């Protein structure tokens, strides 16, 4: 009788932690609610997209906030694991802003007749998407982990400084034009069972976001360790790759 696959020999990457399981369970519940609740009064079934759209915005902004926390923590402690968290969270943040934009456009087409309404929320999400895509591009362009940590945390400072101003300016700009219906979901009465569906969405996607950030962070830490081992053992490991030239073995024995 072969021993059951004990806990430790299932590789970490494939093992479902409690966070993963909670995320899956809550997602199923949220999905059920999102599809079973009655259609919303003014917008009908299309409003169900909101149970997806708003939570993904929340996760995206939470991820970016995590990045900034990681940046500050790295600057304070110079411990690479915080920089790795910053990078991991930024990746999840960009993915979720992508979701927000896509769902926002899919919702806008039937509702407004156009994919892009330049609403302050959607426009800001797109700006954040590119700002943090730039952050990821910078991280990708630097090989050395310490230099990457330094450069990306300085960019983090730039983002911390400027993004609130970007937010304010866009809202002010749209406020002048659109007049006030900015952050409230556009003229929808969300109450009763619909509100629970939205709440379930928030809960489910928060767990999903957290689970993805944990995994992305774990990956970043492993990559850091691998890189550190390769660099530290450069002599040895490179040595392995380099051995004495097999001159006699080559085809034309040197005369």
């Amino acid at each position, binding site marked *: 009788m072969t021993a059951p696959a004990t806990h430790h020999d299932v590789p970490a990457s494939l093992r479902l932690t409690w966070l993963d399981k909670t995320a899956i369970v809550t997602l199923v519940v949220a999905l059920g609610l999102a599809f079973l609740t009655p259609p919303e009064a003014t917008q009908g079934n299309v409003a169900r997209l909101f149970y997806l759209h708003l939570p993904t915005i929340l996760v995206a902004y939470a991820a970016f906030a995590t990045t900034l926390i990681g940046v500050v923590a790295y600057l304070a402690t110079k411990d690479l694991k915080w920089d790795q968290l910053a990078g991991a969270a930024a990746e999840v943040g960009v993915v979720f802003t992508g979701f927000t934009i896509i769902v926002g456009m899919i919702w806008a087409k039937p509702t407004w007749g156009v994919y*892009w309404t330049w609403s302050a929320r959607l426009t800001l999400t797109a700006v954040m998407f*590119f700002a943090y895509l730039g952050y990821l591009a910078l991280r990708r362009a630097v090989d050395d982990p310490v230099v990457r940590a330094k450069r990306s945390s300085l960019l983090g400072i730039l983002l911390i400084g400027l993004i609130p101003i970007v937010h304010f300016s866009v809202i002010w700009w749209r406020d002048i034009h659109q007049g006030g219906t900015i952050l409230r979901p556009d003229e929808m009465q969300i109450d009763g069972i619909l509100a629970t569906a939205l709440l379930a969405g928030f809960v489910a996607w928060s767990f999903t976001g957290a689970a993805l950030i944990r995994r992305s962070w774990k990956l970043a830490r492993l990559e850091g360790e691998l890189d550190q081992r390769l660099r530290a053992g450069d002599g040895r490991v490179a040595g392995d790759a380099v051995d004495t030239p097999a001159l006699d073995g080559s085809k034309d024995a040197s005369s």
Partner: protein
Amino acid sequence: MGWIVTEPTLSSQALTIAGRDIQRERRRGEVLWVILPFGAIAMLLIPFGIGIDTPMLRRIGPGLFWVVVLLFGVLVTVRRTAADTDTEQALMLRLGVDPVAELLGRSAASVAMLIGFQLVVGAVTIALYDVDIARWPVLIALVPLVAIGLGLLGTIAGGISGSSGGANLVPFLVAPLAIPLLLAATQSMDGSTPTGGILGWLLLIVVVDIVLAVIGVLTARPLQEIR
């Protein structure tokens, strides 16, 4: 090790050079991660400047797109992996690479990336500006033809300006010379241009591409002499 040497043909060298450039870009990701998003955010930024009146955006969207393709697309041809260091240039000579093959190979790689650039930034434009592309069949010819024109023009300008010019000289050199490409692209996509007109504009780009190819071939060897 007496290898049998088959004299490499122009096309085989060009293909190898193109493959090299694409592989180098796949490893560096400079076009995918920097130049392409840069083009996309350009399209996002413009309405911040000129207002968000959708009918207006729908009308001027295509024109803005082609300007962005020109001004930002050309950066593809001056990406870091396309600007050879002196040692890399010496290696090309050492390997006896025909300068014409090198020009065609480099341009081909840039053309492939420029097609990708147009497709992605084009999709962003269609979404943000609610552009109706009733004439999308024209794009099937237009996108590659513009890519060829810009790819050749940027590569030739890069060769001519050498490393002395830096990244900004090439876009500056290319901009005025790319006007025919810009006009042909915007006019052939413009709703009011009759079909005969479209063919005329497309033919113009074909002529531009051919002229650029000929100039590229003629200047390749002299440029190598200067090196």
